[in-house]
């Protein structure tokens, strides 16, 4: 029982809130008890729909890779749920976000079915529903940046979010329509101006895909596909069609344009087709790039782990650049194809340290190092890095306490 612990108890008893920069050690946190100020009135009627404190400034940032993408500040979010206003955004092909009146919206299911059906939103809401916590991740997330200046975990890994999605299982709707013998694939399409469409294997559609109208207790946000979004657990986010308006059941592989052009090239010039599933991944979100440790002492290392292949089985943390590893504590519940929050206590001695985490999923797939991925893909450092990057992310803490991204491609 050291003095730090009793300080901590005093701090908690005092009821003060840790501010967003709680990366600091305990002494600093105490010094950061917020001043009491009269807040400006936030826009809108906050009694009718509440706003966060004006002191909470955590926000999405423009994606440096995609002009109209926005990244989630995963260094700031707590637990495993992304607030709706901070969910990452990556729109692939539309002129402007559709502004859809839910009363006018319809979902059409047709093609290789016995009964082509058209559903209103209200009709869908009368059907048996489920709520499931799933991550959605862009296939371009986590690509190691080239050169300095891309230090933050938000910049590198912020194209992922995790929500509780509520809706009707797609399998139920497909059974209502009645699948014809020979049906093998689905084409799902949005109501955006360019009718963005993607192909989905029917096996997946019958397994765990959701036609979602709810996101974290309220309707799906417009930038996430209001009023309906297809949620395809564990698969790259670009096939979870927003503003879902049509599902065509087909008897062969259809290749919508984005699926053809997104196919990832290997060094031999062949492309990996339908490279859907996200691998076993994890990243330490605190401490992470761009943050600063105020001084030696106790820190809680925390981060997020996930796998498109099921539940996270184990997360290990190394504070010595991968020489030794220690099991992190996993916050329950650990859910398949959802974020798992991990935590590991660490006392920083003030010397240079390299922090990294390694995820193992329920199938035994282990998150690889950059060197392992290079070997598998036959990629040298000059080659543009692949989508679906799930390599281990090291963060280097220098003696001045500044945390740097230690995974920069030359």
């Amino acid at each position, binding site marked *: 029982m050291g003095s730090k612990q009793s300080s901590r108890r005093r701090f908690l008893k005092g009821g003060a809130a840790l501010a967003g920069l709680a990366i600091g050690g305990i002494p600093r946190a105490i010094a950061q008890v917020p001043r009491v100020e009269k807040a400006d009135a936030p826009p809108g009627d906050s009694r009718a729909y509440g706003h966060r404190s004006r002191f909470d400034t955590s926000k999405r940032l423009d994606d440096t890779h995609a002009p109209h993408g926005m990244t989630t500040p995963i260094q700031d979010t707590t637990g495993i749920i992304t607030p709706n206003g901070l969910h990452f955004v990556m729109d692939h092909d539309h002129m402007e976000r559709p502004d859809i009146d839910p009363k006018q919206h319809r979902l059409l299911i047709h093609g290789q079915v016995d009964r082509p059906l058209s559903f209103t939103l209200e009709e869908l809401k009368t059907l048996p529903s489920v709520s499931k916590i799933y991550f959605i991740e862009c296939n371009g997330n986590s690509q190691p940046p080239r050169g300095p200046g891309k230090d933050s975990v938000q910049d590198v890994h912020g194209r992922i979010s995790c929500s509780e999605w509520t809706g009707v299982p797609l399998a139920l709707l497909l059974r209502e329509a009645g*699948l014809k013998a020979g049906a093998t694939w689905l084409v799902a399409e949005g109501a955006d101006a360019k009718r963005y469409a993607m192909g989905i294997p*029917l096996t*997946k559609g019958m397994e765990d895909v959701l036609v979602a109208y709810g996101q974290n207790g309220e309707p799906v946000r417009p930038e996430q596909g209001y009023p309906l979004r297809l949620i395809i657990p564990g698969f790259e986010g670009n096939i979870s069609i927003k503003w879902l308006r049509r599902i065509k059941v087909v008897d062969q592989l259809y290749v919508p344009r984005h699926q053809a052009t997104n196919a990832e090239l290997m060094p031999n010039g062949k492309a990996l087709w339908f490279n859907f599933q996200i691998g076993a991944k994890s990243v330490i979100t605190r401490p992470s790039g761009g943050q600063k440790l105020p001084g030696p002492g106790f820190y809680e290392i925390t981060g997020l782990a996930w796998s498109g292949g099921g539940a996270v089985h184990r997360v290990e943390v190394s504070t010595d650049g991968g020489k030794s590893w220690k099991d992190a504590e996993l916050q329950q519940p650990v859910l398949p194809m959802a974020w798992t929050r991990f935590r590991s206590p660490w006392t920083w001695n003030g010397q240079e340290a390299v922090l990294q985490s390694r995820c193992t999923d329920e199938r035994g797939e282990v998150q690889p190092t950059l060197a392992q991925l290079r070997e598998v893909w036959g990629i040298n450092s000059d080659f543009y890095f692949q989508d679906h990057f799930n390599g281990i992310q090291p963060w280097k803490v220098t003696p001045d306490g500044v945390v740097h991204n230690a995974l920069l491609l030359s």
Partner: protein
Amino acid sequence: MGWFTMHYYCRNLLVLTLALTGAAAVAQGPAYQRGRNATEEEIRAWDISIGPDGKELPPGSGTATEGAQIYAQKCAACHGKTGAEIHPAKLTHMGGAPGPLVGGVGTLSSSKPVKTVGSFWPYATILWDYIRRGMPEFRPGTLTVNEVYALTAFLLFQNGIIKEKDVMDANSLPKVQMPNRDGFVPPKPEWKPGMKRPLGYYP
């Protein structure tokens, strides 16, 4: 259901069909009686998905000669005079300027691969589908069926895949052989659902 691969749904279509969908189709009728039966007319109006065999292609036709004029008028501002250019301005909402549509053959295994319609796209019907649904960038869905055939023909001609006078229609377009048709590989077939995946590939 566990995990699956291209092997599972591509090479064993028959097994898949019998095991999952066929059985479901025979065994179950609608349980909830929700939703309205969609009419053939509304399905026709909404269904713009064109498969590789082109069976949904509508009547109409066009040639590269016709397409050249439409292209100059409606496409060249962003895609350049010949389709091989990269526009300097950031015109699209995704990834900045549109990539080239023409050329790039032989670059896919280099360190600077150029993915174009000619060098990369596997089926000619994808081009038709996408021009109709997504182009022109700021007025998608405004092209006539004949304009879409003509523009498709123009881009295939520019890529050296068809001749200038070749008529593209519902019959001829699906028969066009794209150069990179065999350039796409599924995950390794020895992998089975439920198995730990070899490092670096994602079914």
